[in-house]
Protein backbone atom coordinates (compact mmCIF):
# COMPACT_ATOMS: atom_id res chain seq x y z
CA UNK A 1 0.00 0.00 0.00
CA UNK A 2 1.18 3.50 -0.81
CA UNK A 3 0.10 5.91 1.92
CA UNK A 4 -0.66 9.50 0.99
CA UNK A 5 -1.46 12.70 2.82
CA UNK A 6 -5.14 11.80 3.24
CA UNK A 7 -4.02 8.76 5.25
CA UNK A 8 -2.02 10.82 7.75
CA UNK A 9 -3.85 11.91 10.89
CA UNK A 10 -1.05 12.11 13.45
CA UNK A 11 2.73 11.87 13.78
CA UNK A 12 4.16 8.57 12.57
CA UNK A 13 7.04 6.53 14.00
CA UNK A 14 8.41 3.67 11.95
CA UNK A 15 11.20 1.15 12.45
CA UNK A 16 12.85 -0.72 9.58
CA UNK A 17 16.04 -2.39 8.44
CA UNK A 18 16.34 0.12 5.64
CA UNK A 19 14.87 3.55 5.03
CA UNK A 20 15.06 4.65 1.40
CA UNK A 21 14.51 8.33 0.59
CA UNK A 22 13.23 8.92 -2.93
CA UNK A 23 11.27 6.64 -5.25
CA UNK A 24 12.91 7.41 -8.59
CA UNK A 25 15.32 5.33 -10.67
CA UNK A 26 17.67 4.83 -7.70
CA UNK A 27 15.39 4.61 -4.69
CA UNK A 28 12.71 2.39 -6.22
CA UNK A 29 15.27 -0.16 -7.39
CA UNK A 30 17.03 -0.22 -4.01
CA UNK A 31 13.73 -0.54 -2.11
CA UNK A 32 12.44 -3.37 -4.28
CA UNK A 33 15.70 -5.34 -4.23
CA UNK A 34 16.04 -5.12 -0.46
CA UNK A 35 12.37 -5.84 0.23
CA UNK A 36 12.53 -8.90 -2.02
CA UNK A 37 15.52 -10.15 -0.05
CA UNK A 38 13.34 -10.11 3.07
CA UNK A 39 14.49 -6.89 4.70
CA UNK A 40 11.95 -4.51 6.15
CA UNK A 41 11.94 -1.37 4.04
CA UNK A 42 10.34 2.04 4.45
CA UNK A 43 10.31 4.17 1.29
CA UNK A 44 9.75 7.93 1.60
CA UNK A 45 8.69 10.11 -1.33
CA UNK A 46 8.14 13.86 -1.15
CA UNK A 47 5.71 13.99 -4.06
CA UNK A 48 2.29 12.43 -4.41
CA UNK A 49 1.13 9.19 -5.98
CA UNK A 50 -0.36 9.89 -9.39
CA UNK A 51 -1.64 7.34 -11.85
CA UNK A 52 -3.09 7.35 -15.34
CA UNK A 53 -6.50 7.71 -13.69
CA UNK A 54 -5.43 11.05 -12.19
CA UNK A 55 -3.21 12.61 -14.87
CA UNK A 56 -4.39 13.72 -18.30
CA UNK A 57 -1.15 13.67 -20.28
CA UNK A 58 -1.15 17.44 -20.67
CA UNK A 59 1.57 19.75 -19.38
CA UNK A 60 -0.40 22.02 -17.06
CA UNK A 61 -1.79 19.39 -14.71
CA UNK A 62 1.33 17.31 -14.88
CA UNK A 63 3.69 20.19 -14.15
CA UNK A 64 1.58 21.37 -11.23
CA UNK A 65 1.11 17.88 -9.75
CA UNK A 66 4.21 15.89 -10.68
CA UNK A 67 7.10 18.22 -11.55
CA UNK A 68 9.38 19.71 -8.92
CA UNK A 69 8.71 23.46 -8.75
CA UNK A 70 6.17 23.13 -11.55
CA UNK A 71 9.07 22.49 -13.95
CA UNK A 72 10.75 25.70 -12.79
CA UNK A 73 13.92 24.10 -11.45
CA UNK A 74 17.06 25.65 -12.85
CA UNK A 75 20.73 26.18 -12.26
CA UNK A 76 21.92 29.72 -11.70
CA UNK A 77 24.55 30.88 -14.14
CA UNK A 78 24.85 32.21 -17.64
CA UNK A 79 22.54 31.05 -18.99
CA UNK A 80 20.21 29.69 -16.34
CA UNK A 81 19.52 26.13 -17.39
CA UNK A 82 16.14 24.61 -16.69
CA UNK A 83 16.34 21.07 -15.37
CA UNK A 84 13.23 18.93 -15.39
CA UNK A 85 12.74 16.85 -12.25
CA UNK A 86 9.85 14.68 -11.15
CA UNK A 87 8.30 15.02 -7.71
CA UNK A 88 6.00 12.04 -7.47
CA UNK A 89 6.07 8.30 -6.90
CA UNK A 90 8.48 7.06 -9.56
CA UNK A 91 10.42 10.34 -9.51
CA UNK A 92 11.67 11.62 -12.84
CA UNK A 93 11.09 8.21 -14.48
CA UNK A 94 7.35 9.01 -14.40
CA UNK A 95 7.87 12.12 -16.53
CA UNK A 96 10.90 11.30 -18.66
CA UNK A 97 11.06 10.34 -22.33
CA UNK A 98 11.66 6.60 -21.69
CA UNK A 99 15.04 6.57 -23.39
CA UNK A 100 17.29 3.72 -22.32
CA UNK A 101 21.04 3.47 -22.86
CA UNK A 102 23.49 1.24 -21.07
CA UNK A 103 26.53 3.02 -19.65
CA UNK A 104 28.94 3.42 -22.59
CA UNK A 105 31.99 1.13 -22.29
CA UNK A 106 34.42 4.04 -22.70
CA UNK A 107 32.81 5.78 -19.73
CA UNK A 108 33.24 2.67 -17.59
CA UNK A 109 36.88 2.60 -18.69
CA UNK A 110 37.29 6.21 -17.49
CA UNK A 111 35.80 5.28 -14.14
CA UNK A 112 38.23 2.38 -13.81
CA UNK A 113 41.37 4.02 -15.17
CA UNK A 114 41.03 7.58 -13.93
CA UNK A 115 38.87 7.32 -10.82
CA UNK A 116 40.09 4.01 -9.40
CA UNK A 117 36.65 2.36 -9.56
CA UNK A 118 38.13 -0.93 -10.73
CA UNK A 119 35.00 -3.06 -10.27
CA UNK A 120 32.86 -1.38 -12.89
CA UNK A 121 33.51 -3.54 -15.90
CA UNK A 122 31.03 -4.41 -18.63
CA UNK A 123 31.14 -7.99 -17.37
CA UNK A 124 30.19 -6.94 -13.84
CA UNK A 125 27.40 -4.53 -14.80
CA UNK A 126 26.11 -6.61 -17.75
CA UNK A 127 23.83 -8.87 -15.66
CA UNK A 128 22.43 -5.82 -13.86
CA UNK A 129 21.63 -4.16 -17.18
CA UNK A 130 19.93 -7.31 -18.44
CA UNK A 131 17.87 -7.73 -15.30
CA UNK A 132 16.72 -4.11 -15.31
CA UNK A 133 15.97 -4.05 -19.03
CA UNK A 134 13.80 -7.13 -18.55
CA UNK A 135 12.01 -5.66 -15.52
CA UNK A 136 11.11 -2.41 -17.28
CA UNK A 137 10.58 -3.95 -20.72
CA UNK A 138 13.26 -2.13 -22.67
CA UNK A 139 12.42 -2.54 -26.31
CA UNK A 140 12.99 -1.11 -29.77
CA UNK A 141 9.74 0.37 -31.01
CA UNK A 142 8.69 0.24 -34.69
CA UNK A 143 9.15 3.38 -36.83
CA UNK A 144 5.38 3.92 -36.98
CA UNK A 145 5.34 4.41 -33.22
CA UNK A 146 8.52 6.51 -33.25
CA UNK A 147 6.59 9.15 -35.16
CA UNK A 148 7.06 11.51 -38.04
CA UNK A 149 9.80 13.64 -36.46
CA UNK A 150 11.96 10.53 -36.27
CA UNK A 151 11.12 9.62 -39.87
CA UNK A 152 11.99 13.12 -41.11
CA UNK A 153 15.30 13.12 -39.27
CA UNK A 154 16.04 9.67 -40.67
CA UNK A 155 15.31 10.91 -44.18
CA UNK A 156 17.69 13.84 -43.74
CA UNK A 157 20.33 11.70 -42.06
CA UNK A 158 20.15 9.06 -44.79
CA UNK A 159 20.69 11.67 -47.47
CA UNK A 160 23.79 12.93 -45.64
CA UNK A 161 25.13 9.42 -45.00
CA UNK A 162 24.49 9.61 -41.26
CA UNK A 163 23.15 6.79 -39.16
CA UNK A 164 19.78 7.55 -37.57
CA UNK A 165 18.56 4.76 -35.34
CA UNK A 166 15.55 4.06 -33.13
CA UNK A 167 16.08 4.73 -29.45
CA UNK A 168 15.29 1.99 -26.98
CA UNK A 169 12.38 2.67 -24.64
CA UNK A 170 11.01 1.15 -21.46
CA UNK A 171 7.52 0.62 -22.83
CA UNK A 172 5.00 -2.16 -23.10
CA UNK A 173 2.43 -2.05 -25.92
CA UNK A 174 3.28 1.58 -26.69
CA UNK A 175 1.10 3.08 -29.42
CA UNK A 176 2.83 6.43 -29.58
CA UNK A 177 0.25 8.68 -27.92
CA UNK A 178 3.04 11.22 -27.52
CA UNK A 179 2.32 12.31 -23.95
CA UNK A 180 5.44 10.63 -22.51
CA UNK A 181 6.70 13.51 -20.33
CA UNK A 182 3.36 14.45 -18.87
CA UNK A 183 2.02 11.08 -17.80
CA UNK A 184 1.61 8.21 -20.28
CA UNK A 185 -2.13 8.16 -21.03
CA UNK A 186 -1.92 4.60 -22.37
CA UNK A 187 -0.10 3.26 -19.32
CA UNK A 188 2.57 1.90 -21.64
CA UNK A 189 5.54 3.55 -19.97
CA UNK A 190 7.26 1.16 -17.60
CA UNK A 191 8.49 3.74 -15.13
CA UNK A 192 9.23 3.08 -11.48
CA UNK A 193 5.69 3.89 -10.35
CA UNK A 194 4.31 0.93 -12.32
CA UNK A 195 7.23 -1.50 -12.04
CA UNK A 196 9.69 -1.38 -9.15
CA UNK A 197 7.56 0.50 -6.60
CA UNK A 198 4.58 -1.91 -6.85
CA UNK A 199 7.04 -4.83 -6.68
CA UNK A 200 8.57 -3.34 -3.53
CA UNK A 201 5.10 -2.95 -2.01
CA UNK A 202 4.29 -6.56 -2.91
CA UNK A 203 7.37 -7.62 -0.99
CA UNK A 204 6.31 -5.69 2.08
CA UNK A 205 7.89 -2.25 1.64
CA UNK A 206 5.88 0.51 3.35
CA UNK A 207 5.69 3.51 1.04
CA UNK A 208 4.92 7.02 2.28
CA UNK A 209 4.12 9.66 -0.35
CA UNK A 210 3.91 13.38 0.56
CA UNK A 211 6.71 12.68 3.02
CA UNK A 212 9.69 15.03 2.93
CA UNK A 213 12.93 13.87 4.58
CA UNK A 214 14.27 16.73 6.70
CA UNK A 215 17.53 15.35 8.09
CA UNK A 216 19.42 12.23 8.99
CA UNK A 217 19.69 10.99 12.56
CA UNK A 218 23.17 9.79 13.53
CA UNK A 219 24.88 8.42 16.61
CA UNK A 220 28.58 7.73 17.06
CA UNK A 221 29.35 8.24 13.38
CA UNK A 222 26.64 5.88 12.14
CA UNK A 223 23.21 6.66 10.75
CA UNK A 224 20.26 5.64 12.91
CA UNK A 225 17.31 6.96 10.98
CA UNK A 226 15.54 9.84 9.30
CA UNK A 227 13.43 12.74 10.50
CA UNK A 228 10.74 13.69 8.01
CA UNK A 229 7.64 15.81 7.58
CA UNK A 230 4.28 14.72 6.22
CA UNK A 231 3.46 17.54 3.86
CA UNK A 232 0.05 18.84 2.87
CA UNK A 233 0.18 18.92 -0.96
CA UNK A 234 -2.22 21.86 -1.09
CA UNK A 235 -0.19 24.19 1.10
CA UNK A 236 3.27 22.62 0.87
CA UNK A 237 3.47 22.91 4.66
CA UNK A 238 4.39 20.16 7.11
CA UNK A 239 1.28 18.86 8.87
CA UNK A 240 2.74 15.99 10.91
CA UNK A 241 6.17 14.70 11.80
CA UNK A 242 7.57 11.31 10.95
CA UNK A 243 10.60 9.50 12.28
CA UNK A 244 12.03 6.33 10.86
CA UNK A 245 14.53 4.36 12.95
CA UNK A 246 16.62 2.28 10.57
CA UNK A 247 19.88 0.33 10.59
CA UNK A 248 20.66 1.59 7.12
CA UNK A 249 19.56 4.66 5.21
CA UNK A 250 19.73 4.96 1.44
CA UNK A 251 19.46 8.50 0.13
CA UNK A 252 18.12 8.68 -3.43
CA UNK A 253 16.69 12.18 -3.78
CA UNK A 254 18.53 12.97 -7.01
CA UNK A 255 21.63 14.98 -7.84
CA UNK A 256 20.13 18.39 -7.08
CA UNK A 257 18.61 17.49 -3.70
CA UNK A 258 20.76 14.78 -2.13
CA UNK A 259 23.81 17.06 -1.54
CA UNK A 260 21.73 19.75 0.15
CA UNK A 261 20.01 17.14 2.32
CA UNK A 262 23.36 15.67 3.36
CA UNK A 263 24.79 19.10 4.13
CA UNK A 264 21.72 19.97 6.23
CA UNK A 265 22.34 16.72 8.09
CA UNK A 266 25.86 17.84 8.93
CA UNK A 267 27.92 15.74 6.52
CA UNK A 268 31.23 17.24 5.57
CA UNK A 269 33.00 16.00 2.49
CA UNK A 270 34.31 18.37 -0.15
CA UNK A 271 32.81 16.30 -2.95
CA UNK A 272 29.25 16.68 -1.69
CA UNK A 273 27.60 19.16 -4.03
CA UNK A 274 30.50 19.47 -6.45
CA UNK A 275 31.01 18.03 -9.94
CA UNK A 276 27.45 18.73 -11.12
CA UNK A 277 27.15 17.66 -14.73
CA UNK A 278 23.88 18.02 -16.61
CA UNK A 279 24.26 17.14 -20.33
CA UNK A 280 23.24 20.61 -21.58
CA UNK A 281 21.06 20.48 -24.64
CA UNK A 282 19.36 22.75 -27.11
CA UNK A 283 16.18 22.24 -29.08
CA UNK A 284 16.05 22.72 -32.81
CA UNK A 285 12.68 23.06 -34.55
CA UNK A 286 12.08 22.87 -38.29
CA UNK A 287 9.10 24.19 -40.22
CA UNK A 288 8.47 21.56 -42.88
CA UNK A 289 6.51 21.81 -46.12
CA UNK A 290 4.70 18.60 -45.27
CA UNK A 291 2.32 18.05 -42.37
CA UNK A 292 4.37 16.47 -39.58
CA UNK A 293 1.93 16.15 -36.67
CA UNK A 294 4.90 15.40 -34.47
CA UNK A 295 2.73 14.50 -31.49
CA UNK A 296 1.70 11.30 -33.21
CA UNK A 297 4.44 9.07 -31.91
CA UNK A 298 6.72 8.89 -28.87
CA UNK A 299 8.25 12.24 -28.11
CA UNK A 300 11.83 11.00 -28.26
CA UNK A 301 11.96 8.47 -31.05
CA UNK A 302 15.35 8.30 -32.71
CA UNK A 303 18.96 9.32 -32.25
CA UNK A 304 22.12 9.96 -34.18
CA UNK A 305 25.46 9.16 -32.57
CA UNK A 306 27.79 9.85 -35.53
CA UNK A 307 29.20 12.80 -33.57
CA UNK A 308 29.70 10.89 -30.34
CA UNK A 309 33.48 11.19 -30.58
CA UNK A 310 33.03 14.97 -30.55
CA UNK A 311 30.84 14.68 -27.44
CA UNK A 312 27.54 15.34 -29.20
CA UNK A 313 24.47 13.17 -29.43
CA UNK A 314 21.34 14.13 -31.34
CA UNK A 315 18.01 12.92 -29.96
CA UNK A 316 14.33 13.44 -30.60
CA UNK A 317 12.25 15.87 -28.58
CA UNK A 318 8.68 16.77 -29.40
CA UNK A 319 6.17 18.03 -26.89
CA UNK A 320 2.69 19.46 -26.46
CA UNK A 321 2.10 22.95 -27.90
CA UNK A 322 1.96 24.44 -24.38
CA UNK A 323 5.68 23.86 -24.02
CA UNK A 324 7.04 23.71 -27.56
CA UNK A 325 5.34 26.92 -28.67
CA UNK A 326 6.46 28.61 -25.46
CA UNK A 327 10.00 28.23 -26.74
CA UNK A 328 9.23 29.75 -30.14
CA UNK A 329 10.53 33.22 -30.93
CA UNK A 330 8.45 36.38 -31.45
CA UNK A 331 5.57 38.07 -29.65
CA UNK A 332 2.03 38.87 -30.73
CA UNK A 333 0.83 38.26 -34.29
CA UNK A 334 4.21 37.09 -35.66
CA UNK A 335 4.27 34.54 -32.82
CA UNK A 336 0.77 33.37 -33.75
CA UNK A 337 1.83 33.11 -37.39
CA UNK A 338 4.57 30.71 -36.37
CA UNK A 339 2.44 28.88 -33.79
CA UNK A 340 -0.22 28.21 -36.44
CA UNK A 341 2.34 26.06 -38.23
CA UNK A 342 2.64 23.67 -35.25
CA UNK A 343 1.35 20.75 -37.31
CA UNK A 344 4.26 21.34 -39.72
CA UNK A 345 6.89 21.49 -36.99
CA UNK A 346 9.50 18.80 -36.50
CA UNK A 347 11.73 18.98 -33.44
CA UNK A 348 15.02 17.39 -32.49
CA UNK A 349 17.70 18.25 -29.94
CA UNK A 350 21.44 18.32 -29.56
CA UNK A 351 22.82 17.14 -26.23
CA UNK A 352 26.45 17.34 -25.21
CA UNK A 353 28.77 15.37 -23.01
CA UNK A 354 29.75 18.29 -20.80
CA UNK A 355 33.17 19.15 -19.47
CA UNK A 356 32.04 22.03 -17.24
CA UNK A 357 31.07 21.25 -13.66
CA UNK A 358 28.54 23.04 -11.50
CA UNK A 359 27.74 22.96 -7.85
CA UNK A 360 24.80 22.32 -5.52
CA UNK A 361 24.68 24.35 -2.31
CA UNK A 362 22.95 23.81 0.98
CA UNK A 363 19.42 25.17 0.89
CA UNK A 364 16.21 24.80 2.85
CA UNK A 365 14.19 21.60 2.48
CA UNK A 366 11.91 23.15 -0.13
CA UNK A 367 14.45 24.78 -2.41
CA UNK A 368 17.31 23.91 -4.71
CA UNK A 369 20.31 26.17 -5.03
CA UNK A 370 22.79 25.23 -7.74
CA UNK A 371 25.15 26.94 -10.12
CA UNK A 372 26.39 25.84 -13.52
CA UNK A 373 28.37 27.86 -16.02
CA UNK A 374 28.69 26.46 -19.52
CA UNK A 375 32.31 26.79 -20.63
CA UNK A 376 33.70 27.84 -24.00
CA UNK A 377 34.38 24.26 -25.09
CA UNK A 378 30.87 23.10 -24.28
CA UNK A 379 29.11 26.03 -25.91
CA UNK A 380 31.09 25.38 -29.06
CA UNK A 381 29.89 21.75 -28.95
CA UNK A 382 26.31 22.84 -28.38
CA UNK A 383 26.48 25.22 -31.33
CA UNK A 384 27.93 22.47 -33.52
CA UNK A 385 25.20 20.08 -32.39
CA UNK A 386 22.49 22.58 -33.26
CA UNK A 387 24.12 23.19 -36.64
CA UNK A 388 24.25 19.45 -37.34
CA UNK A 389 20.54 19.07 -36.59
CA UNK A 390 19.74 22.10 -38.74
CA UNK A 391 21.75 20.63 -41.61
CA UNK A 392 19.86 17.35 -41.31
CA UNK A 393 16.52 19.17 -41.28
CA UNK A 394 17.41 21.14 -44.40
CA UNK A 395 18.51 17.91 -46.08
CA UNK A 396 15.05 16.54 -45.21
CA UNK A 397 13.37 19.53 -46.86
CA UNK A 398 12.87 22.04 -44.02
CA UNK A 399 11.66 25.53 -45.00
CA UNK A 400 13.05 27.18 -41.86
CA UNK A 401 14.91 26.04 -38.80
CA UNK A 402 14.53 27.67 -35.38
CA UNK A 403 17.49 27.62 -33.03
CA UNK A 404 18.18 28.60 -29.44
CA UNK A 405 20.86 31.15 -30.43
CA UNK A 406 19.86 34.80 -30.09
CA UNK A 407 21.93 36.09 -33.01
CA UNK A 408 20.44 33.53 -35.39
CA UNK A 409 17.05 32.41 -34.05
CA UNK A 410 15.79 31.53 -37.55
CA UNK A 411 17.84 29.81 -40.27
CA UNK A 412 16.43 30.05 -43.79
CA UNK A 413 18.85 27.89 -45.75
CA UNK A 414 21.85 25.55 -45.46
CA UNK A 415 24.04 28.64 -45.98
CA UNK A 416 22.73 29.96 -42.68
CA UNK A 417 23.95 26.75 -41.06
CA UNK A 418 27.47 27.60 -42.22
CA UNK A 419 27.04 31.11 -40.81
CA UNK A 420 25.86 29.63 -37.51
CA UNK A 421 28.98 27.46 -37.37
CA UNK A 422 31.14 30.55 -37.89
CA UNK A 423 29.23 32.55 -35.29
CA UNK A 424 31.20 33.58 -32.23
CA UNK A 425 29.12 32.68 -29.22
CA UNK A 426 30.37 33.52 -25.79
CA UNK A 427 29.32 31.09 -23.09
CA UNK A 428 26.09 32.12 -21.52
CA UNK A 429 24.96 35.35 -22.99
CA UNK A 430 23.55 34.53 -26.38
CA UNK A 431 21.87 31.19 -26.19
CA UNK A 432 19.42 29.16 -24.22
CA UNK A 433 20.02 25.68 -22.90
CA UNK A 434 18.03 22.99 -21.18
CA UNK A 435 19.02 19.87 -19.31
CA UNK A 436 17.43 16.72 -18.01
CA UNK A 437 20.27 14.67 -16.52
CA UNK A 438 21.88 16.13 -13.40
CA UNK A 439 24.64 13.80 -12.24
CA UNK A 440 27.73 13.50 -10.09
CA UNK A 441 27.15 15.70 -7.03
CA UNK A 442 28.02 12.93 -4.51
CA UNK A 443 30.19 10.96 -6.84
CA UNK A 444 31.74 7.59 -6.19
CA UNK A 445 35.45 7.66 -5.61
CA UNK A 446 38.26 5.54 -4.33
CA UNK A 447 38.85 7.80 -1.32
CA UNK A 448 37.20 10.74 0.48
CA UNK A 449 39.51 12.98 -1.51
CA UNK A 450 37.95 11.98 -4.81
CA UNK A 451 34.41 11.01 -3.87
CA UNK A 452 31.57 11.35 -1.40
CA UNK A 453 30.85 7.61 -1.40
CA UNK A 454 32.89 4.48 -2.06
CA UNK A 455 32.29 2.10 -4.94
CA UNK A 456 29.58 0.37 -2.87
CA UNK A 457 27.70 3.65 -2.49
CA UNK A 458 28.50 3.98 1.22
CA UNK A 459 29.32 7.40 2.59
CA UNK A 460 32.95 7.97 3.56
CA UNK A 461 31.72 10.04 6.49
CA UNK A 462 28.80 8.23 8.08
CA UNK A 463 28.57 4.48 8.54
CA UNK A 464 25.55 2.62 7.12
CA UNK A 465 24.58 5.64 5.04
CA UNK A 466 24.35 4.88 1.34
CA UNK A 467 23.55 7.02 -1.67
CA UNK A 468 21.90 5.46 -4.70
CA UNK A 469 20.84 8.03 -7.28
CA UNK A 470 22.29 10.05 -10.16
CA UNK A 471 24.52 11.93 -7.74
CA UNK A 472 26.87 8.93 -7.35
CA UNK A 473 27.46 8.64 -11.11
CA UNK A 474 31.10 9.72 -11.23
CA UNK A 475 31.18 11.49 -14.59
CA UNK A 476 28.97 12.83 -17.33
CA UNK A 477 27.74 9.89 -19.43
CA UNK A 478 26.89 11.52 -22.74
CA UNK A 479 23.69 9.45 -22.86
CA UNK A 480 20.40 9.34 -20.95
CA UNK A 481 21.24 7.99 -17.50
CA UNK A 482 18.24 6.10 -16.13
CA UNK A 483 19.62 2.62 -16.85
CA UNK A 484 23.01 3.55 -15.35
CA UNK A 485 21.33 4.90 -12.20
CA UNK A 486 19.18 1.78 -11.86
CA UNK A 487 22.15 -0.55 -12.37
CA UNK A 488 24.27 1.27 -9.80
CA UNK A 489 21.32 1.29 -7.37
CA UNK A 490 20.90 -2.45 -7.82
CA UNK A 491 24.63 -2.96 -7.22
CA UNK A 492 24.43 -0.78 -4.08
CA UNK A 493 21.32 -2.61 -2.82
CA UNK A 494 23.18 -5.91 -3.15
CA UNK A 495 26.07 -4.55 -1.08
CA UNK A 496 23.60 -3.25 1.55
CA UNK A 497 21.92 -6.67 1.65
CA UNK A 498 25.30 -8.34 2.19
CA UNK A 499 26.05 -5.97 5.07
CA UNK A 500 22.63 -6.48 6.65
CA UNK A 501 22.92 -10.23 6.20
CA UNK A 502 26.26 -10.26 8.01
CA UNK A 503 25.03 -8.16 10.92
CA UNK A 504 21.62 -9.84 11.31
Amino acid at each position, binding site marked *: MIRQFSDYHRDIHETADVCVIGSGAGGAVAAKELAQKGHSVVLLEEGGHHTRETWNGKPFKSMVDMFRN*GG*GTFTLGMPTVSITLGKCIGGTTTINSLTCFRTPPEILKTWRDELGLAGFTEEYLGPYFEKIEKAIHVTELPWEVLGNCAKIIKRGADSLGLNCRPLKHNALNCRGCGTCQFGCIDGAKQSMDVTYVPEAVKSGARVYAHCRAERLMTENGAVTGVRASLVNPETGKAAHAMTVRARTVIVACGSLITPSFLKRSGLKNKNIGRNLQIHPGARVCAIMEEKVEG*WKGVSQGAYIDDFENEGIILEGIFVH*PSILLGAFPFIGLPFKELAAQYAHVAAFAAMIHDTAAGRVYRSGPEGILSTYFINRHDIELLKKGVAYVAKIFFAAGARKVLTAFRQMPVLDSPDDVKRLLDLRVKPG*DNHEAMAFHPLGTCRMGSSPKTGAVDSNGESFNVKNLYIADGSVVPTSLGVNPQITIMALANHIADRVAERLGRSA
Partner: protein
Amino acid sequence: MKVLKGRYGIIARAIMEAIIPRGGAFEAGAADYDLLPEADRFIGCFDGRMRKLFPLMLLYIEYGALFTSGRTFTRMSPEKAGAFLEKMEASPLYFKRAMIMVLKLMTTVPFFDIDEVARQVGYSHGTHCGHGASQGGMP
Protein backbone atom coordinates in the same frame (compact mmCIF):
# COMPACT_ATOMS: atom_id res chain seq x y z
CA MET B 1 -4.42 33.89 -5.97
CA LYS B 2 -1.01 33.23 -4.48
CA VAL B 3 1.21 35.43 -6.63
CA LEU B 4 -0.84 37.21 -9.28
CA LYS B 5 -3.12 39.12 -6.97
CA GLY B 6 -4.21 42.75 -7.26
CA ARG B 7 -2.09 44.87 -9.56
CA TYR B 8 0.22 41.95 -10.32
CA GLY B 9 -2.75 40.17 -11.85
CA ILE B 10 -3.53 43.22 -13.98
CA ILE B 11 0.05 43.39 -15.26
CA ALA B 12 0.21 39.64 -15.88
CA ARG B 13 -3.05 39.74 -17.82
CA ALA B 14 -1.76 42.60 -20.00
CA ILE B 15 1.44 40.68 -20.69
CA MET B 16 -0.45 37.54 -21.67
CA GLU B 17 -2.70 39.52 -23.99
CA ALA B 18 0.32 41.14 -25.63
CA ILE B 19 2.06 37.79 -26.13
CA ILE B 20 -1.02 36.17 -27.67
CA PRO B 21 -3.42 38.86 -28.93
CA ARG B 22 -6.74 38.13 -30.60
CA GLY B 23 -6.82 37.59 -34.35
CA GLY B 24 -4.08 36.90 -36.83
CA ALA B 25 -3.21 33.36 -37.89
CA PHE B 26 -5.85 31.92 -35.56
CA GLU B 27 -8.67 33.68 -33.81
CA ALA B 28 -8.25 32.88 -30.13
CA GLY B 29 -6.25 35.22 -27.94
CA ALA B 30 -5.30 35.19 -24.28
CA ALA B 31 -8.06 37.75 -23.62
CA ASP B 32 -10.70 35.21 -24.64
CA TYR B 33 -10.06 33.05 -21.59
CA ASP B 34 -9.52 33.66 -17.92
CA LEU B 35 -5.96 32.37 -17.80
CA LEU B 36 -4.99 34.16 -14.62
CA PRO B 37 -6.05 31.50 -12.07
CA GLU B 38 -4.19 28.81 -14.02
CA ALA B 39 -1.14 30.99 -14.50
CA ASP B 40 -1.17 31.70 -10.77
CA ARG B 41 -1.36 27.99 -9.94
CA PHE B 42 1.54 27.35 -12.29
CA ILE B 43 3.72 30.09 -10.83
CA GLY B 44 2.61 29.09 -7.33
CA CYS B 45 4.47 25.81 -7.84
CA PHE B 46 7.78 27.57 -8.43
CA ASP B 47 10.50 27.56 -5.84
CA GLY B 48 10.00 30.19 -3.09
CA ARG B 49 12.77 32.44 -4.42
CA MET B 50 11.26 32.46 -7.90
CA ARG B 51 7.82 33.17 -6.47
CA LYS B 52 9.21 36.19 -4.65
CA LEU B 53 11.05 37.41 -7.75
CA PHE B 54 8.02 37.13 -9.96
CA PRO B 55 6.17 40.25 -8.76
CA LEU B 56 9.41 42.21 -9.11
CA MET B 57 9.69 41.02 -12.67
CA LEU B 58 6.14 42.20 -13.38
CA LEU B 59 6.91 45.59 -11.84
CA TYR B 60 10.07 45.83 -13.96
CA ILE B 61 7.93 45.43 -17.07
CA GLU B 62 5.17 47.75 -15.85
CA TYR B 63 7.51 50.63 -15.04
CA GLY B 64 10.30 49.79 -17.49
CA ALA B 65 7.84 50.69 -20.23
CA LEU B 66 7.74 54.24 -18.88
CA PHE B 67 11.30 54.78 -20.06
CA THR B 68 10.65 53.75 -23.64
CA SER B 69 7.12 55.00 -24.28
CA GLY B 70 6.27 57.37 -21.46
CA ARG B 71 3.43 55.07 -20.35
CA THR B 72 3.27 52.15 -17.97
CA PHE B 73 2.93 48.76 -19.65
CA THR B 74 -0.72 48.33 -18.72
CA ARG B 75 -1.56 51.70 -20.31
CA MET B 76 0.15 50.92 -23.61
CA SER B 77 -1.78 50.00 -26.74
CA PRO B 78 -1.65 46.24 -27.52
CA GLU B 79 0.70 46.92 -30.49
CA LYS B 80 3.11 48.98 -28.42
CA ALA B 81 2.98 46.47 -25.55
CA GLY B 82 3.86 43.69 -28.00
CA ALA B 83 6.68 45.74 -29.49
CA PHE B 84 8.04 46.43 -25.99
CA LEU B 85 8.15 42.72 -25.14
CA GLU B 86 9.62 41.91 -28.54
CA LYS B 87 12.46 44.30 -27.86
CA MET B 88 13.12 42.55 -24.57
CA GLU B 89 13.14 39.18 -26.32
CA ALA B 90 15.81 40.36 -28.75
CA SER B 91 17.86 42.09 -26.07
CA PRO B 92 21.56 41.24 -25.76
CA LEU B 93 21.00 41.25 -21.99
CA TYR B 94 20.33 37.72 -20.90
CA PHE B 95 18.13 38.55 -17.93
CA LYS B 96 15.65 40.37 -20.18
CA ARG B 97 15.42 37.39 -22.52
CA ALA B 98 15.07 35.03 -19.55
CA MET B 99 12.13 37.10 -18.27
CA ILE B 100 10.39 36.77 -21.61
CA MET B 101 10.95 33.02 -21.62
CA VAL B 102 9.24 32.68 -18.24
CA LEU B 103 6.39 35.02 -19.20
CA LYS B 104 5.82 33.17 -22.45
CA LEU B 105 5.53 29.88 -20.59
CA MET B 106 3.20 31.50 -18.06
CA THR B 107 1.00 32.27 -21.07
CA THR B 108 1.37 29.26 -23.34
CA VAL B 109 1.08 26.58 -20.65
CA PRO B 110 -2.49 27.47 -19.61
CA PHE B 111 -3.52 28.83 -23.05
CA PHE B 112 -2.71 25.80 -25.18
CA ASP B 113 -3.91 23.48 -22.42
CA ILE B 114 -7.42 24.40 -23.55
CA ASP B 115 -8.35 21.80 -26.14
CA GLU B 116 -10.28 24.16 -28.40
CA VAL B 117 -7.25 26.47 -28.54
CA ALA B 118 -4.85 23.61 -29.19
CA ARG B 119 -7.10 22.52 -32.04
CA GLN B 120 -6.63 25.94 -33.66
CA VAL B 121 -2.94 25.13 -34.17
CA GLY B 122 -3.87 21.67 -35.46
CA TYR B 123 -3.21 19.69 -32.30
CA SER B 124 -5.59 17.02 -31.05
CA HIS B 125 -4.73 15.48 -27.71
CA GLY B 126 -4.36 11.72 -27.88
CA THR B 127 -7.13 11.27 -30.44
CA HIS B 128 -4.86 9.31 -32.80
CA CYS B 129 -4.70 6.67 -30.05
CA GLY B 130 -8.42 6.73 -29.39
CA HIS B 131 -8.25 9.02 -26.36
CA GLY B 132 -11.06 11.51 -26.95
CA ALA B 133 -10.17 15.02 -25.90
CA SER B 134 -13.12 16.75 -24.28
CA GLN B 135 -13.63 20.48 -24.10
CA GLY B 136 -11.74 20.96 -20.87
CA GLY B 137 -9.26 18.18 -21.34
CA MET B 138 -9.48 14.63 -20.11
CA PRO B 139 -10.22 13.92 -16.43
